């Protein structure tokens, strides 16, 4: 699929329809999940009462921000090796959305943490720290790109950083994990299968799917804007050089 999309024209043709479709289905799924989360799902005394409803945003956003970083590193790699213009456009579009989702994960996490753990923030919690670091990776990536003169240079610098960052992420995760953790271990994605009641699990997965589609739509939207911008630049350059 990616090799098909690597052609900007085909990408534009595809995304033209994909964007509204993703938005529509994503919003519908997410809306249903939110309805379930806010009115249907029973509150859970052990996890802090009604605040458990934050889970339906927190957990998908946690998964998505990690996924978005993988996407960033992947498209950076593709650009660095094959110089596919579209891969760079994708990387550029992913970064702010990734940063936003990471911030969302941090925010919902600390909102959840206040009633359950009695504090907004824990310094030596492994998950929290690794998400914070992910946030800094996104910020650093964007700051670096913004500081470079030309798009070409921004792409090169960004790709180097994203790739090195990707190699380092497992190390960060591992080091942080052996440090200590208050955060609960995985209860959905684990070898023995999910250990979560279906009332929680189904809306959670639906919410994840819905948010995932919305994220995809947002990324495509930003990419389209960028492609349009570049076409406009090219047009302008042609006009300028003609007279």
């Amino acid at each position, binding site marked *: 699929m990616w090799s098909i999309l690597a052609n900007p024209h085909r990408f534009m043709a595809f995304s033209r329809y994909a964007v509204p479709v993703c938005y529509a289905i994503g919003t519908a799924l997410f809306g249903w999940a939110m309805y379930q989360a806010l009115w249907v799902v029973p509150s859970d005394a052990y996890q802090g009462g009604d605040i458990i409803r934050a889970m339906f945003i927190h957990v998908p956003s946690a998964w998505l921000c990690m996924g978005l970083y993988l996407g960033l590193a992947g498209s950076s790699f593709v650009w660095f090796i094959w110089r596919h213009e579209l891969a760079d456009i994708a990387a550029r579009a992913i970064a702010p959305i990734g940063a936003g989702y990471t911030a969302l994960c941090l925010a919902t996490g600390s909102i959840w943490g206040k009633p359950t753990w009695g504090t907004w923030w824990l310094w030596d919690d492994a998950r929290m*720290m690794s998400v914070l*670091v*992910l946030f*800094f*990776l996104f*910020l*650093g990536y964007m*700051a*670096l790109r913004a*500081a*470079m*003169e030309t798009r070409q*240079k921004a792409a*090169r*610098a960004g790709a*180097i*950083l994203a*790739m*090195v*960052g990707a*190699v*380092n992420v497992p*190390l*960060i995760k*591992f*080091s*942080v994990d*052996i*440090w200590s953790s208050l955060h609960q271990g995985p209860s959905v994605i684990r070898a023995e299968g999910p250990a979560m009641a279906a009332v929680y699990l189904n809306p959670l997965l639906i919410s994840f799917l819905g948010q995932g589609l919305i994220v995809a739509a947002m990324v495509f939207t930003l990419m389209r804007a960028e492609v349009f911008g570049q076409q406009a630049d090219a047009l302008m350059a042609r006009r300028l050089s003609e007279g």
Partner: protein
Amino acid sequence: MTLPSPLLSAFRQALSEAWAGGAGVLLPFGFFAGTAVLVPFTMGSDPDLLAKIGPGVLWLALALASLVTLERVFQADLQDGALDLWVQEDGSISQIAAVKTLAHWLISGLPLVLLTPLLGMMLQVPATQTVPAMVAYALGGLTFFLWGGVAAALSASVARGGLLIALIALPFYLPTVIFGTLALDEGLGGTSILFLAASTLFALGVAPAAMGAALRLAAD
């Protein structure tokens, strides 16, 4: 170890550069004086407290030394045209960057490590921790310089991107800080020092290539 001659020369040149900069002799002194004066005044001189924060202050100092030093080196190389000369030494710019990093670590990082016993005394670090601390600071400092070098090389072409560097380098410093802090508690027998060594090796493997690519970009 016999280095090929360009690398050896890059090393010698970087050594003399770091030395001539005055940083070599003065960094440990400056840092020593700085912590000696500022830390007790601002954080109190309670021995228990100092014992707790002492190692951390040293880590911070190493991290800062690595960031500030390499930023200048690459920025200066870019401005005075020396980077152009090095970039053209075919294919070896990564190795040269690594060797320069090493030289600057020797001059600006290692003296701090060697001063550890003295600083440790001041900051109430228990005597039994001195040797593990020195090993940990040596390995950790080198890792800091390597990752800091990547960040510095990446932002070399940006006018005074000092803080961009800090932002970029931080995530990379984290594993080192964690393993290093753990290693101080566990001593040389523990596993953390092995992890620390592994993370240093990892940086040695990955950082030079990234530095090389970033320096090429900076010269463009």
